[in-house]
């Protein structure tokens, strides 16, 4: 099994606004860190050629969606909190709205499966509605894969 994760953030300004310029400039180097990280499997991309583009979707223009797949929990944790990505995370208030909503979810997928954004958003909704369980969980309330 592989670990899929989705996280969302609400932008403080349109993605092409000057307020977001520093964030957009970080997309390419930080995504490169992810792509090279141990245990990285896949991530959702808008474009194979332009690394500054964020994923386009129908969930609202101000909503930024990240989704990726990892071999293990530790692989994902080490990327999120033990690379340069941590510094970007600490600056989140500069670019994203503060929120009390749960903004990130994880779930297990069969190896080789590539999740869709709709699938990820449904997992996030499940986590928000029902709390953490085997189908949708977080680092703090982690669930090991259930054998089918």
């Amino acid at each position, binding site marked *: 099994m592989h670990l899929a994760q989705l996280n969302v953030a609400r932008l403080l300004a349109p993605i092409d606004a000057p307020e977001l310029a520093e964030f957009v400039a970080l997309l390419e180097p930080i995504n490169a860190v992810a792509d090279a990280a141990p245990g990285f499997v896949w991530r959702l991309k808008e474009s194979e050629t332009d690394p500054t583009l964020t994923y386009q979707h129908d969930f609202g223009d101000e909503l930024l969606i990240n989704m990726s797949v990892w071999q293990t929990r530790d692989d994902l944790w080490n990327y999120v909190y*033990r690379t340069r990505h*941590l*510094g970007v995370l600490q600056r989140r208030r500069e670019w994203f709205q503060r929120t009390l909503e749960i903004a990130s979810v994880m779930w297990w997928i069969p190896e080789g499966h590539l999740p869709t954004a709709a699938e990820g958003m449904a997992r996030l909704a499940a986590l928000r509605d029902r709390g953490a369980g085997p189908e949708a969980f977080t680092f703090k309330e982690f669930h090991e894969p259930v054998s089918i």
Partner: protein
Amino acid sequence: MNDLDAVAALHDPVRRALYEFVAASGRDVGRNEAAEGVGVSRTLAAFHLDKLAEVGLLETGFARLSATRPGPGAGRPAKVYRRGRTSRYVAVPERDFRELASLLAEVVGDLDAADGAIAAAARAGKKLHEPGGWLATLRDRGYEPYRQDDVVRLRNCPFQQVADEQPLLVCSMNLALCQGIAGDDATAELDPKPGECCVSFSKNKNR
């Protein structure tokens, strides 16, 4: 193995030197290397290393060490030692702030009060600053600083348990604390690496 027994195993000075040697190396260490590093015989080193492994202060494995010893047996996997991951705590009488720290960190996160916590950490660091003494201060506080090229990295995170639970908050506080300790002597920056502290330092010029 309880914590008191594990800590008591460090009473022997040779054993303690071996533990510190393996811990400071930050990687797998073979018996020969440890014996040479501490200046004791290989047999004595092996005895104490295995004692340390028995109480859980070291972990063991087998690895093919580089072919520094040609001839028969050179290709055989050798027993290697690395520092155990579990922390040991002894306080007499019992005092334990970990649970409390976890709860408070969670509350700070929920209240979105990280800015105040980071400012408090910066003030605490400033109080600890002694010009020219930042490396010694970091060493005393268990960060285990070591040099790598032009930067000083920290092998150990003294706040690991709470940092694992609230990395955004604790790593931000730790950066502020570390910058306070270094003062004008060095610049602390967030430079996380798996298994180590999240901060590294570059020395400031003319210091």
